[in-house]
């Protein structure tokens, strides 16, 4: 993102931006300009009097799924995802615990050796 442009973009430039035409100076400007963000919302409302763009009114229009439903369909998770995730997370946690046990055992080093030798003497 480049430095912010001090002059506000024209309505035409904002319209073009809304249409998805990349214009780096405009892009950089509106990224930080509250006033132009508001102008864009107004412009979007003018070109879409039904308000489907600036509001959440897209939900359930005719046979068309709403934007949310479409996004959920496009990013749908596998049906068994949660079962797999639960198992995977649990297994990872178990592995981490075992690693801790091994680290504790090995890290004990001399203490462990002393303990084992002590046990041997006791046994004998």
């Amino acid at each position, binding site marked *: 993102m480049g430095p912010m442009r001090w002059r506000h973009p024209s309505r035409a430039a904002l319209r073009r931006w809304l249409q998805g035409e990349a214009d780096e100076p405009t892009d950089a400007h509106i990224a930080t300009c509250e006033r132009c963000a508001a102008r864009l919302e107004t412009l979007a409302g003018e070109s879409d009097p039904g308000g489907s763009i600036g509001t959440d009114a897209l939900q359930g229009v005719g046979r068309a799924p709403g934007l949310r439903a479409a996004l959920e369909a496009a990013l749908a998770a*596998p049906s068994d995802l949660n079962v797999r995730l639960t198992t995977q997370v649990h297994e990872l946690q178990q592995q981490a615990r075992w690693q801790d046990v091994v680290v504790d055992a090995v890290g004990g080093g001399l203490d462990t050796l002393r303990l084992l030798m002590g046990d041997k003497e006791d046994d004998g």
Partner: protein
Amino acid sequence: MLRARLLARCWAVLAPDGVPPGRAAGRSAAGTAAAGGPPDDLRALVDEHGTAIYRYALSIVRDPATAEDIAQEALTKAWLALPSFRGESSLRSWLLRITHHAAMSMLRVRRAEAIDPDDIEGSSGADHVEGAVENRLALAQFQRALADLDELSRQIVVLREVEDLPYETIAAMLRVPLPTVKTRLLRARRQLTTALEGWR
């Protein structure tokens, strides 16, 4: 002394809730499960937020397998950090923030390996639901439009439209100014709406 500590550690691994007998449980009794399976708390966490975490990860990386890896990593981190969750934000936005960091790390690695997400996009996450959608072509068109959005816009539109997060939370999570959130959302909605025409 050491032997007792090792035994306690082994018990922590073998016990379903990781708490030796005779000690106060760190999680509630409801958080335990029989036969060493995942604790009920973990199941509940995943059931409630797993899909949202996966969906958000998928919107960033655009590859179902990678998104699942990210979801797994995020949930593992979240599960371990859950006791320190202070409730300053909603649990959902906290989890999505962890997911965001996990996905960004994954993307950094992927970019370092110079793999384009478009190269692995073939197996879409929507394969699982396509049969339930009336017009597959329309869904494919919508997915293309979603993929055509820049990464930031895709994240914003998912966080706002699907997860209902406030603009301010999204701005803080993604570390972008508030106007960026609003304008990117506006443009993304417009572009996606065009793609939705196929369903009208």
